[in-house]
Protein backbone atom coordinates (compact mmCIF):
# COMPACT_ATOMS: atom_id res chain seq x y z
CA UNK A 1 0.00 0.00 0.00
CA UNK A 2 1.05 3.55 -0.68
CA UNK A 3 0.20 4.63 2.85
CA UNK A 4 -2.61 6.88 3.88
CA UNK A 5 -3.71 9.33 1.23
CA UNK A 6 -5.45 12.61 1.87
CA UNK A 7 -8.81 10.87 1.44
CA UNK A 8 -8.23 8.71 4.49
CA UNK A 9 -7.54 11.74 6.65
CA UNK A 10 -10.68 13.38 5.28
CA UNK A 11 -12.79 10.43 6.32
CA UNK A 12 -11.36 10.31 9.81
CA UNK A 13 -11.97 14.02 10.27
CA UNK A 14 -15.55 13.73 8.97
CA UNK A 15 -16.39 10.81 11.25
CA UNK A 16 -14.81 12.55 14.22
CA UNK A 17 -16.82 15.73 13.60
CA UNK A 18 -20.00 13.68 13.18
CA UNK A 19 -19.42 11.90 16.50
CA UNK A 20 -18.57 15.07 18.36
CA UNK A 21 -21.62 16.93 17.07
CA UNK A 22 -23.91 13.96 17.68
CA UNK A 23 -22.55 13.34 21.19
CA UNK A 24 -22.69 16.96 22.32
CA UNK A 25 -25.68 18.11 20.30
CA UNK A 26 -28.29 16.03 22.11
CA UNK A 27 -30.74 13.42 20.93
CA UNK A 28 -32.17 15.26 17.96
CA UNK A 29 -28.79 15.91 16.37
CA UNK A 30 -27.80 12.30 17.04
CA UNK A 31 -30.95 10.99 15.34
CA UNK A 32 -30.36 13.12 12.25
CA UNK A 33 -26.76 12.02 12.06
CA UNK A 34 -27.72 8.35 12.40
CA UNK A 35 -29.98 8.79 9.35
CA UNK A 36 -27.12 10.56 7.58
CA UNK A 37 -24.85 7.62 8.41
CA UNK A 38 -27.39 5.10 7.08
CA UNK A 39 -27.54 6.98 3.78
CA UNK A 40 -23.77 7.34 3.74
CA UNK A 41 -23.44 3.58 4.15
CA UNK A 42 -25.86 3.05 1.26
CA UNK A 43 -23.92 5.38 -1.01
CA UNK A 44 -20.64 3.58 -0.26
CA UNK A 45 -22.19 0.30 -1.31
CA UNK A 46 -23.59 1.94 -4.41
CA UNK A 47 -20.41 3.74 -5.34
CA UNK A 48 -18.27 0.64 -4.80
CA UNK A 49 -20.11 -1.20 -7.55
CA UNK A 50 -21.83 1.25 -9.88
CA UNK A 51 -19.50 4.21 -9.43
CA UNK A 52 -16.45 2.16 -10.35
CA UNK A 53 -17.72 -0.42 -12.82
CA UNK A 54 -20.09 1.95 -14.62
CA UNK A 55 -22.90 -0.61 -14.35
CA UNK A 56 -25.90 1.37 -13.14
CA UNK A 57 -27.83 -0.64 -10.58
CA UNK A 58 -31.30 0.91 -10.58
CA UNK A 59 -32.56 -1.72 -8.15
CA UNK A 60 -30.17 -0.91 -5.33
CA UNK A 61 -33.11 -0.54 -2.91
CA UNK A 62 -33.48 -4.32 -2.92
CA UNK A 63 -30.40 -4.71 -0.69
CA UNK A 64 -31.38 -2.44 2.23
CA UNK A 65 -34.98 -3.57 1.69
CA UNK A 66 -34.39 -7.30 1.90
CA UNK A 67 -31.86 -7.05 4.72
CA UNK A 68 -34.19 -4.76 6.66
CA UNK A 69 -37.18 -7.03 6.18
CA UNK A 70 -35.23 -10.19 7.03
CA UNK A 71 -33.74 -8.72 10.18
CA UNK A 72 -37.01 -7.10 11.25
CA UNK A 73 -39.11 -10.22 10.66
CA UNK A 74 -36.67 -12.46 12.50
CA UNK A 75 -36.37 -10.24 15.55
CA UNK A 76 -39.96 -8.97 15.77
CA UNK A 77 -41.84 -12.16 14.84
CA UNK A 78 -39.53 -14.93 16.00
CA UNK A 79 -37.82 -13.21 18.90
CA UNK A 80 -34.31 -13.64 17.51
CA UNK A 81 -31.78 -11.32 19.16
CA UNK A 82 -30.99 -8.24 17.00
CA UNK A 83 -27.32 -9.11 17.31
CA UNK A 84 -28.01 -12.35 15.45
CA UNK A 85 -30.73 -11.10 13.09
CA UNK A 86 -28.56 -8.21 11.85
CA UNK A 87 -25.87 -10.45 10.28
CA UNK A 88 -28.59 -12.77 8.94
CA UNK A 89 -30.22 -9.74 7.30
CA UNK A 90 -26.92 -8.76 5.70
CA UNK A 91 -26.42 -12.35 4.58
CA UNK A 92 -29.86 -12.47 2.97
CA UNK A 93 -29.05 -9.32 0.98
CA UNK A 94 -25.84 -10.99 -0.21
CA UNK A 95 -27.76 -14.14 -1.16
CA UNK A 96 -30.28 -12.09 -3.13
CA UNK A 97 -27.39 -10.29 -4.83
CA UNK A 98 -25.89 -13.64 -5.76
CA UNK A 99 -29.14 -14.76 -7.40
CA UNK A 100 -29.81 -11.43 -9.16
CA UNK A 101 -26.16 -10.96 -10.11
CA UNK A 102 -25.83 -14.45 -11.57
CA UNK A 103 -28.80 -13.70 -13.82
CA UNK A 104 -28.26 -10.06 -14.73
CA UNK A 105 -24.54 -9.29 -14.68
CA UNK A 106 -24.07 -10.77 -18.15
CA UNK A 107 -26.48 -8.17 -19.52
CA UNK A 108 -25.02 -4.77 -20.33
CA UNK A 109 -25.92 -1.09 -20.37
CA UNK A 110 -29.50 0.04 -20.12
CA UNK A 111 -30.74 -3.56 -20.07
CA UNK A 112 -28.78 -4.23 -16.90
CA UNK A 113 -30.12 -1.07 -15.27
CA UNK A 114 -33.72 -1.88 -16.11
CA UNK A 115 -33.56 -5.56 -15.22
CA UNK A 116 -32.11 -4.77 -11.81
CA UNK A 117 -34.75 -2.04 -11.39
CA UNK A 118 -37.47 -4.65 -11.74
CA UNK A 119 -36.37 -6.71 -8.72
CA UNK A 120 -37.28 -4.28 -5.89
CA UNK A 121 -40.49 -3.36 -7.71
CA UNK A 122 -41.47 -7.03 -7.70
CA UNK A 123 -40.45 -7.36 -4.04
CA UNK A 124 -42.57 -4.27 -3.27
CA UNK A 125 -45.55 -6.04 -4.79
CA UNK A 126 -44.71 -9.18 -2.81
CA UNK A 127 -44.82 -7.30 0.51
CA UNK A 128 -48.34 -6.20 -0.41
CA UNK A 129 -49.56 -9.55 -1.63
CA UNK A 130 -48.16 -11.52 1.32
CA UNK A 131 -49.52 -8.76 3.58
CA UNK A 132 -50.29 -11.06 6.48
CA UNK A 133 -46.65 -11.85 7.06
CA UNK A 134 -44.92 -8.67 5.89
CA UNK A 135 -47.51 -6.28 7.30
CA UNK A 136 -48.64 -4.91 3.92
CA UNK A 137 -48.39 -1.17 3.55
CA UNK A 138 -47.91 -0.72 7.28
CA UNK A 139 -44.73 -2.77 7.32
CA UNK A 140 -43.39 -4.60 10.36
CA UNK A 141 -43.70 -2.75 13.66
CA UNK A 142 -42.10 -3.26 17.03
CA UNK A 143 -38.64 -4.24 15.81
CA UNK A 144 -36.37 -4.33 18.88
CA UNK A 145 -33.69 -1.64 18.85
CA UNK A 146 -30.04 -2.02 19.74
CA UNK A 147 -29.83 0.89 22.18
CA UNK A 148 -32.17 3.24 24.01
CA UNK A 149 -30.03 6.31 23.46
CA UNK A 150 -29.54 7.35 19.81
CA UNK A 151 -26.05 8.56 20.67
CA UNK A 152 -24.94 4.93 21.16
CA UNK A 153 -26.60 4.14 17.84
CA UNK A 154 -24.53 6.88 16.28
CA UNK A 155 -21.39 5.31 17.73
CA UNK A 156 -22.34 1.86 16.50
CA UNK A 157 -23.29 2.86 12.95
CA UNK A 158 -20.33 5.21 12.84
CA UNK A 159 -18.10 2.25 13.64
CA UNK A 160 -19.67 0.20 10.84
CA UNK A 161 -19.35 3.18 8.52
CA UNK A 162 -15.68 3.69 9.39
CA UNK A 163 -14.90 0.03 8.71
CA UNK A 164 -16.81 0.11 5.43
CA UNK A 165 -15.17 3.33 4.21
CA UNK A 166 -11.70 2.02 5.03
CA UNK A 167 -12.47 -1.28 3.35
CA UNK A 168 -14.02 0.41 0.28
CA UNK A 169 -11.05 2.76 -0.13
CA UNK A 170 -8.63 -0.14 0.16
CA UNK A 171 -10.72 -2.21 -2.27
CA UNK A 172 -11.02 0.40 -5.00
CA UNK A 173 -7.34 1.25 -4.60
CA UNK A 174 -6.37 -2.42 -5.03
CA UNK A 175 -6.07 -4.40 -8.23
CA UNK A 176 -9.79 -5.21 -8.02
CA UNK A 177 -10.65 -1.52 -8.22
CA UNK A 178 -8.34 -1.15 -11.19
CA UNK A 179 -10.12 -4.01 -12.94
CA UNK A 180 -13.53 -2.46 -12.21
CA UNK A 181 -12.38 0.81 -13.74
CA UNK A 182 -11.04 -1.09 -16.74
CA UNK A 183 -14.49 -2.63 -17.16
CA UNK A 184 -16.04 0.82 -17.02
CA UNK A 185 -13.58 1.98 -19.68
CA UNK A 186 -14.46 -0.87 -22.00
CA UNK A 187 -15.66 -4.29 -21.04
CA UNK A 188 -14.65 -5.97 -24.27
CA UNK A 189 -11.15 -4.51 -24.04
CA UNK A 190 -10.84 -5.83 -20.50
CA UNK A 191 -11.97 -9.26 -21.63
CA UNK A 192 -9.51 -9.20 -24.52
CA UNK A 193 -6.72 -8.64 -21.99
CA UNK A 194 -7.76 -11.84 -20.26
CA UNK A 195 -9.82 -10.39 -17.41
CA UNK A 196 -12.67 -12.64 -16.32
CA UNK A 197 -15.01 -9.65 -16.05
CA UNK A 198 -18.05 -11.54 -14.78
CA UNK A 199 -16.26 -12.86 -11.69
CA UNK A 200 -14.92 -9.45 -10.71
CA UNK A 201 -18.26 -7.76 -11.24
CA UNK A 202 -19.96 -10.51 -9.24
CA UNK A 203 -17.66 -10.04 -6.23
CA UNK A 204 -18.12 -6.26 -6.30
CA UNK A 205 -21.91 -6.73 -6.61
CA UNK A 206 -21.94 -8.95 -3.49
CA UNK A 207 -19.82 -6.47 -1.52
CA UNK A 208 -22.12 -3.66 -2.58
CA UNK A 209 -25.08 -5.73 -1.40
CA UNK A 210 -23.45 -6.47 1.95
CA UNK A 211 -22.82 -2.78 2.66
CA UNK A 212 -26.31 -1.73 1.49
CA UNK A 213 -27.79 -4.60 3.50
CA UNK A 214 -26.01 -3.47 6.65
CA UNK A 215 -27.52 0.00 6.17
CA UNK A 216 -31.05 -1.38 5.70
CA UNK A 217 -30.86 -3.79 8.63
CA UNK A 218 -29.54 -1.11 10.92
CA UNK A 219 -32.28 1.28 9.79
CA UNK A 220 -34.97 -1.29 10.61
CA UNK A 221 -33.68 -1.68 14.17
CA UNK A 222 -33.05 2.02 14.62
CA UNK A 223 -36.51 3.26 13.61
CA UNK A 224 -38.02 0.06 15.12
CA UNK A 225 -40.06 -0.56 11.99
CA UNK A 226 -39.60 -1.38 8.35
CA UNK A 227 -42.11 -0.36 5.70
CA UNK A 228 -42.29 -1.23 1.99
CA UNK A 229 -41.26 2.34 1.15
CA UNK A 230 -37.65 1.26 1.59
CA UNK A 231 -38.08 -0.88 -1.53
CA UNK A 232 -39.51 2.03 -3.48
CA UNK A 233 -37.59 3.33 -6.46
CA UNK A 234 -37.30 6.65 -4.59
CA UNK A 235 -34.85 4.99 -2.20
CA UNK A 236 -32.61 4.01 -5.10
CA UNK A 237 -33.00 7.45 -6.62
CA UNK A 238 -31.97 9.06 -3.37
CA UNK A 239 -28.87 6.91 -3.10
CA UNK A 240 -27.99 7.66 -6.73
CA UNK A 241 -28.55 11.37 -6.06
CA UNK A 242 -26.27 11.45 -3.04
CA UNK A 243 -23.64 9.53 -4.99
CA UNK A 244 -23.75 11.82 -7.99
CA UNK A 245 -23.93 15.06 -6.04
CA UNK A 246 -20.88 13.91 -4.08
CA UNK A 247 -19.11 12.63 -7.17
CA UNK A 248 -19.35 9.01 -8.29
CA UNK A 249 -16.22 6.92 -8.00
CA UNK A 250 -14.72 8.82 -5.07
CA UNK A 251 -16.25 6.93 -2.07
CA UNK A 252 -15.62 9.91 0.23
CA UNK A 253 -17.59 12.43 -1.87
CA UNK A 254 -20.89 10.55 -1.58
CA UNK A 255 -20.41 10.18 2.20
CA UNK A 256 -19.97 13.92 2.60
CA UNK A 257 -22.92 14.58 0.28
CA UNK A 258 -25.15 12.22 2.30
CA UNK A 259 -24.49 14.06 5.54
CA UNK A 260 -24.86 17.49 3.93
CA UNK A 261 -28.10 16.65 2.12
CA UNK A 262 -29.67 14.92 5.12
CA UNK A 263 -28.85 17.95 7.27
CA UNK A 264 -30.12 20.31 4.55
CA UNK A 265 -33.32 18.28 4.37
CA UNK A 266 -33.74 18.65 8.14
CA UNK A 267 -33.06 22.39 7.99
CA UNK A 268 -35.77 22.81 5.37
CA UNK A 269 -38.27 20.94 7.53
CA UNK A 270 -39.95 24.23 8.50
CA UNK A 271 -41.29 24.55 4.95
CA UNK A 272 -42.96 21.18 4.96
CA UNK A 273 -44.80 21.64 1.70
CA UNK A 274 -42.12 23.33 -0.30
CA UNK A 275 -39.26 21.17 0.90
CA UNK A 276 -39.56 18.23 -1.49
CA UNK A 277 -40.36 20.48 -4.42
CA UNK A 278 -37.31 22.64 -3.72
CA UNK A 279 -35.24 19.50 -3.25
CA UNK A 280 -36.12 18.03 -6.64
CA UNK A 281 -35.85 21.34 -8.48
CA UNK A 282 -32.43 21.83 -6.88
CA UNK A 283 -31.41 18.37 -8.03
CA UNK A 284 -32.51 19.09 -11.60
CA UNK A 285 -30.51 22.30 -11.62
CA UNK A 286 -27.40 20.65 -10.18
CA UNK A 287 -27.51 17.94 -12.84
CA UNK A 288 -28.16 20.45 -15.59
CA UNK A 289 -25.38 22.86 -14.72
CA UNK A 290 -22.83 20.64 -13.01
CA UNK A 291 -23.35 17.06 -14.17
CA UNK A 292 -20.35 15.70 -12.28
CA UNK A 293 -21.76 16.74 -8.93
CA UNK A 294 -20.99 19.59 -6.59
CA UNK A 295 -18.14 18.30 -4.47
CA UNK A 296 -15.77 17.15 -7.19
CA UNK A 297 -15.55 20.55 -8.98
CA UNK A 298 -15.31 22.21 -5.57
CA UNK A 299 -12.44 19.93 -4.57
CA UNK A 300 -10.74 20.59 -7.89
CA UNK A 301 -10.90 24.37 -7.54
CA UNK A 302 -9.66 24.08 -3.94
CA UNK A 303 -6.77 21.97 -5.18
CA UNK A 304 -6.01 24.55 -7.85
CA UNK A 305 -6.05 27.25 -5.19
CA UNK A 306 -3.58 25.30 -3.03
CA UNK A 307 -1.27 24.77 -6.01
CA UNK A 308 -1.37 28.44 -6.95
CA UNK A 309 -0.53 29.37 -3.35
CA UNK A 310 2.35 26.95 -3.36
CA UNK A 311 3.77 28.20 -6.63
CA UNK A 312 3.34 31.76 -5.40
CA UNK A 313 5.26 31.02 -2.20
CA UNK A 314 7.96 29.20 -4.15
CA UNK A 315 8.33 32.16 -6.47
CA UNK A 316 8.55 34.63 -3.60
CA UNK A 317 11.51 32.66 -2.23
Amino acid at each position, binding site marked *: MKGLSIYHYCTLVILFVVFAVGWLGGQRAAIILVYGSVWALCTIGYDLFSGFSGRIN*LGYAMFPGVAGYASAALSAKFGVSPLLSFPIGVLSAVLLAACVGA*LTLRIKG*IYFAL*STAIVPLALFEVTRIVGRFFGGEEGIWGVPSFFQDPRYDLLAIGGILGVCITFALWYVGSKEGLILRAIRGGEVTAQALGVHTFGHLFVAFLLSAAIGGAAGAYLAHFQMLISPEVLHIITTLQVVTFTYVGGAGTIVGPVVASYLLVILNEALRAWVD*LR*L*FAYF*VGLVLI*LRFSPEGLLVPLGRSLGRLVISFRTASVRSK
Partner: protein
Amino acid sequence: MDTVLSILVFGLATSGIYALMSVGVALVYGVGRIINFAHGAFYTLGAYLTYLYATRLGLGWWISSFLSIVSVAIFAVLIDLLLIDPVRDDEIVVWILTFALAFATREALVLLLGARPYSIPAFAPGSISIMGQAIAAQRMLIVVVSALAICALWIFLYKSRIGKAIRAVALNRTGAHLVGIPVRMMYAMVMAISASLAAVAGIVISPISVMTPDMGLQPLLLAFTIVILGGIGSLRGSLIASLIVGYAGALVSFLWSPELVTLMALVIVFAVLIVRPTGLFGVAVERA
Protein backbone atom coordinates in the same frame (compact mmCIF):
# COMPACT_ATOMS: atom_id res chain seq x y z
CA MET B 1 -69.55 -15.77 -22.88
CA ASP B 2 -70.15 -12.57 -20.91
CA THR B 3 -66.84 -12.95 -19.16
CA VAL B 4 -65.02 -13.61 -22.41
CA LEU B 5 -66.45 -10.44 -23.95
CA SER B 6 -65.63 -8.41 -20.84
CA ILE B 7 -62.07 -9.66 -20.89
CA LEU B 8 -61.81 -8.84 -24.60
CA VAL B 9 -62.96 -5.24 -24.20
CA PHE B 10 -61.25 -4.69 -20.86
CA GLY B 11 -57.97 -6.04 -22.22
CA LEU B 12 -58.25 -3.94 -25.36
CA ALA B 13 -58.83 -0.73 -23.37
CA THR B 14 -55.92 -1.48 -21.04
CA SER B 15 -53.69 -2.36 -23.97
CA GLY B 16 -54.69 0.92 -25.62
CA ILE B 17 -53.53 2.95 -22.63
CA TYR B 18 -50.32 0.92 -22.40
CA ALA B 19 -49.71 1.38 -26.12
CA LEU B 20 -50.14 5.17 -25.91
CA MET B 21 -47.63 5.30 -23.07
CA SER B 22 -45.07 2.81 -24.33
CA VAL B 23 -44.95 3.97 -27.94
CA GLY B 24 -43.90 7.39 -26.63
CA VAL B 25 -41.15 5.89 -24.48
CA ALA B 26 -39.94 3.76 -27.39
CA LEU B 27 -39.98 6.71 -29.79
CA VAL B 28 -38.00 8.97 -27.48
CA TYR B 29 -35.45 6.24 -26.92
CA GLY B 30 -35.24 5.28 -30.57
CA VAL B 31 -34.73 8.82 -31.84
CA GLY B 32 -33.33 10.84 -28.96
CA ARG B 33 -31.44 7.92 -27.35
CA ILE B 34 -32.64 8.94 -23.93
CA ILE B 35 -34.68 7.10 -21.33
CA ASN B 36 -37.27 9.56 -20.15
CA PHE B 37 -38.44 8.78 -16.63
CA ALA B 38 -40.53 11.97 -16.66
CA HIS B 39 -42.91 10.35 -19.13
CA GLY B 40 -45.39 9.54 -16.36
CA ALA B 41 -45.49 13.23 -15.45
CA PHE B 42 -46.91 14.04 -18.91
CA TYR B 43 -49.68 11.52 -18.28
CA THR B 44 -50.49 13.07 -14.90
CA LEU B 45 -50.23 16.63 -16.20
CA GLY B 46 -52.56 15.86 -19.10
CA ALA B 47 -55.31 14.80 -16.72
CA TYR B 48 -54.75 17.59 -14.20
CA LEU B 49 -54.55 20.39 -16.78
CA THR B 50 -57.79 19.19 -18.36
CA TYR B 51 -59.43 19.34 -14.95
CA LEU B 52 -57.98 22.79 -14.23
CA TYR B 53 -58.92 24.30 -17.61
CA ALA B 54 -62.45 22.97 -17.29
CA THR B 55 -63.14 23.89 -13.67
CA ARG B 56 -61.09 27.07 -13.22
CA LEU B 57 -61.56 28.61 -16.65
CA GLY B 58 -64.99 27.17 -17.25
CA LEU B 59 -64.16 25.73 -20.67
CA GLY B 60 -65.86 22.67 -22.09
CA TRP B 61 -64.27 19.27 -21.41
CA TRP B 62 -63.33 18.63 -25.04
CA ILE B 63 -61.72 22.07 -25.48
CA SER B 64 -59.91 21.70 -22.16
CA SER B 65 -58.54 18.34 -23.20
CA PHE B 66 -57.26 19.77 -26.44
CA LEU B 67 -55.65 22.74 -24.67
CA SER B 68 -54.17 20.42 -22.08
CA ILE B 69 -52.57 18.22 -24.74
CA VAL B 70 -51.05 21.28 -26.41
CA SER B 71 -49.74 22.63 -23.08
CA VAL B 72 -48.17 19.31 -22.17
CA ALA B 73 -46.46 19.18 -25.57
CA ILE B 74 -45.07 22.68 -25.07
CA PHE B 75 -43.91 21.77 -21.56
CA ALA B 76 -42.14 18.72 -22.96
CA VAL B 77 -40.39 20.73 -25.66
CA LEU B 78 -39.19 23.25 -23.08
CA ILE B 79 -37.85 20.47 -20.86
CA ASP B 80 -36.09 18.91 -23.82
CA LEU B 81 -34.46 22.09 -25.06
CA LEU B 82 -33.58 23.71 -21.74
CA LEU B 83 -32.77 20.82 -19.44
CA ILE B 84 -32.15 17.57 -21.27
CA ASP B 85 -30.38 18.67 -24.43
CA PRO B 86 -27.24 20.07 -22.72
CA VAL B 87 -26.62 16.77 -20.91
CA ARG B 88 -28.03 14.42 -23.55
CA ASP B 89 -24.85 12.44 -24.07
CA ASP B 90 -24.47 11.52 -20.43
CA GLU B 91 -26.96 8.69 -20.08
CA ILE B 92 -26.92 8.43 -16.31
CA VAL B 93 -27.33 12.16 -15.77
CA VAL B 94 -30.38 12.13 -18.06
CA TRP B 95 -31.93 9.28 -16.07
CA ILE B 96 -31.52 11.00 -12.73
CA LEU B 97 -32.54 14.37 -14.16
CA THR B 98 -35.77 13.07 -15.67
CA PHE B 99 -36.48 11.12 -12.49
CA ALA B 100 -36.07 14.28 -10.46
CA LEU B 101 -38.26 16.17 -12.93
CA ALA B 102 -41.03 13.61 -12.49
CA PHE B 103 -40.94 14.06 -8.74
CA ALA B 104 -40.67 17.84 -8.98
CA THR B 105 -43.89 17.80 -11.05
CA ARG B 106 -45.54 15.54 -8.50
CA GLU B 107 -44.56 17.84 -5.63
CA ALA B 108 -45.73 20.91 -7.55
CA LEU B 109 -49.15 19.29 -7.98
CA VAL B 110 -49.29 18.40 -4.29
CA LEU B 111 -48.34 21.98 -3.41
CA LEU B 112 -50.94 23.56 -5.66
CA LEU B 113 -53.85 21.16 -5.39
CA GLY B 114 -53.12 18.90 -2.44
CA ALA B 115 -52.82 15.13 -2.50
CA ARG B 116 -56.56 14.48 -2.56
CA PRO B 117 -57.99 12.67 -5.58
CA TYR B 118 -59.93 14.51 -8.29
CA SER B 119 -62.07 13.15 -11.06
CA ILE B 120 -63.26 14.08 -14.53
CA PRO B 121 -66.77 13.26 -15.77
CA ALA B 122 -66.94 10.66 -18.53
CA PHE B 123 -66.56 12.06 -22.04
CA ALA B 124 -68.82 9.32 -23.26
CA PRO B 125 -71.36 8.72 -20.49
CA GLY B 126 -73.55 5.68 -20.14
CA SER B 127 -72.93 2.31 -21.58
CA ILE B 128 -73.41 0.60 -24.90
CA SER B 129 -74.48 -2.96 -25.32
CA ILE B 130 -72.56 -5.37 -27.48
CA MET B 131 -74.20 -8.75 -27.94
CA GLY B 132 -76.35 -8.16 -24.89
CA GLN B 133 -73.43 -7.23 -22.65
CA ALA B 134 -73.35 -3.70 -21.23
CA ILE B 135 -69.94 -2.07 -21.55
CA ALA B 136 -69.03 1.40 -20.27
CA ALA B 137 -68.96 3.76 -23.24
CA GLN B 138 -65.84 5.45 -21.85
CA ARG B 139 -63.98 2.16 -22.14
CA MET B 140 -64.96 1.92 -25.80
CA LEU B 141 -63.88 5.54 -26.23
CA ILE B 142 -60.43 4.61 -24.88
CA VAL B 143 -60.17 1.83 -27.45
CA VAL B 144 -61.20 4.13 -30.31
CA VAL B 145 -59.03 7.09 -29.25
CA SER B 146 -55.92 5.02 -28.71
CA ALA B 147 -56.38 3.18 -32.01
CA LEU B 148 -56.85 6.50 -33.85
CA ALA B 149 -53.84 8.08 -32.16
CA ILE B 150 -51.58 5.14 -32.95
CA CYS B 151 -52.75 5.07 -36.59
CA ALA B 152 -52.17 8.81 -36.92
CA LEU B 153 -48.67 8.39 -35.49
CA TRP B 154 -47.95 5.58 -37.96
CA ILE B 155 -49.12 7.58 -40.96
CA PHE B 156 -47.14 10.58 -39.73
CA LEU B 157 -43.94 8.59 -39.27
CA TYR B 158 -44.13 6.65 -42.51
CA LYS B 159 -45.78 9.05 -44.96
CA SER B 160 -44.94 12.62 -44.01
CA ARG B 161 -41.65 14.36 -44.73
CA ILE B 162 -41.04 15.23 -41.09
CA GLY B 163 -41.85 11.67 -40.07
CA LYS B 164 -39.26 10.37 -42.50
CA ALA B 165 -36.73 12.86 -41.11
CA ILE B 166 -37.46 11.57 -37.61
CA ARG B 167 -36.86 8.00 -38.72
CA ALA B 168 -33.65 9.07 -40.42
CA VAL B 169 -32.39 10.51 -37.13
CA ALA B 170 -33.28 7.26 -35.39
CA LEU B 171 -31.25 5.33 -37.96
CA ASN B 172 -28.18 7.50 -37.93
CA ARG B 173 -27.80 10.75 -36.10
CA THR B 174 -24.66 11.91 -37.90
CA GLY B 175 -25.93 10.89 -41.32
CA ALA B 176 -29.17 12.76 -40.77
CA HIS B 177 -27.24 15.82 -39.67
CA LEU B 178 -25.07 15.65 -42.80
CA VAL B 179 -28.02 15.60 -45.19
CA GLY B 180 -29.38 18.73 -43.54
CA ILE B 181 -31.98 17.43 -41.11
CA PRO B 182 -32.17 19.70 -38.04
CA VAL B 183 -31.45 16.92 -35.54
CA ARG B 184 -32.11 18.95 -32.45
CA MET B 185 -35.51 20.02 -33.78
CA MET B 186 -36.37 16.39 -34.38
CA TYR B 187 -35.52 15.51 -30.78
CA ALA B 188 -37.86 18.23 -29.56
CA MET B 189 -40.52 17.13 -32.03
CA VAL B 190 -40.37 13.53 -30.85
CA MET B 191 -40.57 14.69 -27.25
CA ALA B 192 -43.68 16.71 -28.05
CA ILE B 193 -45.33 13.80 -29.84
CA SER B 194 -44.60 11.32 -27.09
CA ALA B 195 -45.71 13.77 -24.39
CA SER B 196 -49.00 14.45 -26.13
CA LEU B 197 -49.68 10.72 -26.53
CA ALA B 198 -49.07 10.31 -22.79
CA ALA B 199 -51.37 13.27 -22.09
CA VAL B 200 -54.11 11.67 -24.22
CA ALA B 201 -53.74 8.46 -22.23
CA GLY B 202 -53.99 10.36 -18.94
CA ILE B 203 -57.07 12.26 -20.08
CA VAL B 204 -59.07 9.30 -21.37
CA ILE B 205 -58.27 7.10 -18.38
CA SER B 206 -59.14 9.58 -15.62
CA PRO B 207 -62.97 9.36 -15.94
CA ILE B 208 -62.83 5.65 -15.09
CA SER B 209 -60.16 5.93 -12.42
CA VAL B 210 -59.10 8.77 -10.12
CA MET B 211 -56.58 11.55 -10.55
CA THR B 212 -53.85 11.69 -7.92
CA PRO B 213 -50.37 13.20 -8.14
CA ASP B 214 -49.02 9.63 -8.20
CA MET B 215 -51.25 8.37 -11.00
CA GLY B 216 -48.39 8.44 -13.51
CA LEU B 217 -46.11 6.07 -11.63
CA GLN B 218 -47.87 2.77 -12.31
CA PRO B 219 -48.37 3.35 -16.08
CA LEU B 220 -44.79 4.57 -16.32
CA LEU B 221 -43.48 1.36 -14.81
CA LEU B 222 -45.72 -0.73 -17.03
CA ALA B 223 -44.71 1.29 -20.09
CA PHE B 224 -41.08 0.57 -19.32
CA THR B 225 -41.66 -3.13 -18.82
CA ILE B 226 -43.61 -3.19 -22.09
CA VAL B 227 -40.89 -1.36 -23.97
CA ILE B 228 -38.27 -3.75 -22.65
CA LEU B 229 -40.48 -6.71 -23.50
CA GLY B 230 -40.97 -5.46 -27.04
CA GLY B 231 -37.34 -4.51 -27.49
CA ILE B 232 -36.15 -1.02 -26.67
CA GLY B 233 -36.60 1.33 -29.59
CA SER B 234 -38.90 -0.92 -31.60
CA LEU B 235 -42.33 0.67 -32.07
CA ARG B 236 -43.90 -2.46 -33.49
CA GLY B 237 -42.49 -4.48 -30.61
CA SER B 238 -43.99 -2.06 -28.09
CA LEU B 239 -47.42 -2.35 -29.68
CA ILE B 240 -47.40 -6.13 -29.62
CA ALA B 241 -46.02 -6.16 -26.08
CA SER B 242 -48.79 -3.74 -25.00
CA LEU B 243 -51.36 -6.23 -26.23
CA ILE B 244 -49.59 -9.10 -24.49
CA VAL B 245 -49.30 -7.30 -21.15
CA GLY B 246 -52.78 -5.74 -21.44
CA TYR B 247 -54.50 -9.06 -22.09
CA ALA B 248 -52.37 -11.00 -19.63
CA GLY B 249 -53.29 -8.35 -17.03
CA ALA B 250 -57.01 -8.56 -17.87
CA LEU B 251 -56.91 -12.35 -17.60
CA VAL B 252 -55.01 -12.33 -14.32
CA SER B 253 -57.31 -9.76 -12.76
CA PHE B 254 -60.45 -11.64 -13.85
CA LEU B 255 -59.15 -15.06 -12.83
CA TRP B 256 -57.25 -14.20 -9.64
CA SER B 257 -56.88 -10.68 -8.37
CA PRO B 258 -56.04 -7.23 -9.80
CA GLU B 259 -53.26 -7.00 -7.21
CA LEU B 260 -51.18 -9.50 -9.15
CA VAL B 261 -51.13 -7.55 -12.44
CA THR B 262 -47.97 -5.54 -11.82
CA LEU B 263 -46.11 -8.47 -10.30
CA MET B 264 -47.02 -10.60 -13.31
CA ALA B 265 -45.81 -7.97 -15.76
CA LEU B 266 -42.55 -7.62 -13.85
CA VAL B 267 -41.96 -11.35 -13.72
CA ILE B 268 -42.64 -11.74 -17.46
CA VAL B 269 -40.23 -8.95 -18.30
CA PHE B 270 -37.52 -10.16 -15.95
CA ALA B 271 -37.76 -13.62 -17.49
CA VAL B 272 -37.59 -12.22 -21.03
CA LEU B 273 -34.61 -10.03 -20.16
CA ILE B 274 -32.68 -12.98 -18.83
CA VAL B 275 -33.36 -15.17 -21.84
CA ARG B 276 -33.27 -12.50 -24.50
CA PRO B 277 -31.86 -9.20 -23.22
CA THR B 278 -32.86 -7.26 -26.33
CA GLY B 279 -36.56 -8.05 -25.89
CA LEU B 280 -38.86 -9.89 -28.24
CA PHE B 281 -38.36 -7.73 -31.33
CA GLY B 282 -35.30 -5.68 -30.46
CA VAL B 283 -32.02 -5.59 -32.25
CA ALA B 284 -28.86 -5.24 -30.22
CA VAL B 285 -27.64 -1.67 -30.46
CA GLU B 286 -23.93 -1.55 -29.83
CA ARG B 287 -22.84 1.91 -28.90
CA ALA B 288 -19.36 3.04 -28.07
